[in-house]
């Protein structure tokens, strides 16, 4: 075999290998361009990429009860946090202003709380009330909520 033929054969084989593989891709997917190029429905792909479920019905934050302590000077709110995420997360900070009637109080989380993947955790937010105390019949309203989350190293700050 002369030099030119050897050179031709050597350089043709890689091209043949690649072409055969590309033809095999189409052949194994019934010569359908869409199923050969995309592995699955793009919507399903997006759903798989997101760490939470689209149709999650439970609310992220659920207020369970409000307690008054120390003669009405301290407010404690029990909240259940439902995590829609497939991974555990840590609530590093959580604070909010509670408005009850004319009184405003700031409540916050005493320490970090870990929420298991797709699980729930009950937390207690505490804060001092103004001297006037809280009118018992008034409905509390939350505002200026601030939350710091750590989701496997991804730091997220949310303001509501």
């Amino acid at each position, binding site marked *: 075999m002369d030099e030119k033929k050897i050179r031709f054969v*050597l350089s043709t084989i890689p091209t043949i*290998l*690649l072409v055969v593989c590309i033809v095999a*891709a189409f052949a194994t997917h019934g010569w359908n361009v869409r*199923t050969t*190029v995309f592995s699955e429905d793009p919507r399903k792909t997006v759903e798989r990429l997101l760490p939470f479920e689209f149709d999650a019905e439970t609310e992220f934050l659920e207020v369970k009860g409000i307690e008054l302590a120390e003669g009405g000077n301290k407010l404690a709110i029990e909240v259940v946090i439902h995590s829609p995420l*497939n991974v555990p997360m840590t609530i590093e900070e959580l604070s909010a202003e509670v408005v009850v009637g004319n009184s405003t109080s700031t409540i916050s989380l005493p320490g970090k709380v870990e929420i298991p993947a797709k699980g729930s955790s009950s937390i207690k937010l505490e804060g001092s009330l103004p001297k006037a105390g809280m009118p018992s019949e008034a409905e509390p309203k939350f505002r200026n909520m601030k939350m710091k989350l750590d989701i496997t190293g991804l730091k997220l700050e949310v303001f509501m």
Partner: protein
Amino acid sequence: MGNSEAAAKAWRRINWIGVIAGVLTIALPFLGKWWQLTLGTGAVFMEMSPFGTDIIIFEESVSGAIGSPLLWWFLLGLKLVIVYLGVVLLAGSVLSISDRHVAIAEQFIHFSARKLLWLVVAFVALLFFIIVIVNQAPGILDSLIGNAPFQLRSDLPYLIGEGEVSGGIEVMRFACPIRMEFTNAFGIAVLAAALGVASRIYQKRLHNKNIT
């Protein structure tokens, strides 16, 4: 000339650098990914090589979901091509032993010795280009959109090291540390590529020595 002396001379005619480069090149597609990227402490983990990409987002592998079958087959073809190049380099390096096949050996080595180097260079250049684009993107977006409602800051390391991506909108801010590193498989790829180039130079010397 005695038999043992002839055998010793024949052994010396083997291009040993090419033999090692050939074996490493053949093994390369099976040694794993070349480069890793970690977002956070494992929120996103990505491994890349010219032979494929693995992506794990929040502890779930999504490589199958985002990878295309066509790409999978193309990468299989690329793996076969690299193995083929390794076999050709190995064959050329061993064939140098025979006077009859020395010209073919020369061609085999000439054809296969530098190809892996181009693959390694192309892989690193592509990664570098992507990182440059990602790092420049926030500035480009800023100049295009002006007072955008969102902010983005990208401080990615160039191929190796640690950095951070941060940004947000009015009600939400995020910050994510990023770590990038090359794996041992990349080290082997660089070694195989370097030995491939060296084997070509060595083969020329060997050839000139045999002529004289």
